[in-house]
């Protein structure tokens, strides 16, 4: 999006800046936290974790676009995406194991490691 597109003719709320992206990211993060706490299904919890990671990425890219961080923002976001992929693969492998053992993917049923 070229800077020339941000003309002076539009009102303030139509001038999309860093704050707009940070608010979207904050709401996305909150929805992820809500899913992680409120869902009892482990796949629902995984969905919440992915939402939180995406919210963090939106922040990183927005800071890269609007501040001096420049391309360092997207580079960190790439590492976050990579770790999210590794984490999703491990989590689903664990989940399949738990499901085979106990016949449930409720996080409340996986209590074997509780002291």
């Amino acid at each position: 999006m070229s800077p020339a597109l941000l003309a002076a003719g539009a009102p303030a709320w139509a001038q999309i800046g860093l704050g707009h992206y940070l608010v979207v990211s904050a709401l996305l993060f909150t929805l992820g936290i809500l899913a992680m706490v409120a869902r009892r299904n482990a796949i629902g919890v995984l969905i919440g974790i992915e939402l939180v990671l995406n919210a963090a990425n939106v922040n990183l890219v927005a800071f890269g676009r609007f501040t001096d961080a420049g391309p360092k923002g997207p580079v960190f976001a790439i590492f976050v995406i990579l770790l999210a992929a590794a984490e999703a693969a491990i989590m689903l492998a664990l989940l399949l194991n738990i499901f085979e053992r106990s016949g449930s993917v409720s996080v409340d049923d996986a209590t074997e490691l509780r002291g």
Partner: protein
Amino acid sequence: MNDILAKTGDVLRDWGPALLFYGMAGLVLATAAYAVLARKIDHSAFSLMACFAGVAGLYALLGSDFLAAAQVVVYVGGIMVLVVFGVLLTDRLPIEFRQISRETAVQGLAVAIPVAVAILGAVLGTAWPTRPEEAVADEGTTREIGVLLLTDYLFPFEFASVLLLVALVGAARLARGGRS
């Protein structure tokens, strides 16, 4: 006629970026909310896919073309396939685990509302540093990202690739569940 065209161009130039942003943000938040609240976990998973695509749109609006493509390939193409597999392989649950009970909804809101207030307060109450618009490259960030990954961030890059290999081999080993 030329006047009308010029006016339309002005309106698009003034409002186009804002309309795109609000559209994408609305799509992302609405699909994320449905993914969190849907009664059926498979509805949740497909709503999450639309949410990831919307986030890719936000990256594109931010001028991060490479990351938008990576988001589509890795999240929409990869992680979503994993999640859908997980849903299909474990879809024999009693109905009460599929939805959010009143008890856990209260617990979730008790955590989520303070988090939202704290983050939104910090976001809206801080004067964020900005850089002049002239400094923003118009041709996207792919080249700069590539240079950074192979110079300043070479070690994290290689380390991350080894980590990903270990994680995927480990996941394959775990998913076999002790069977040889």
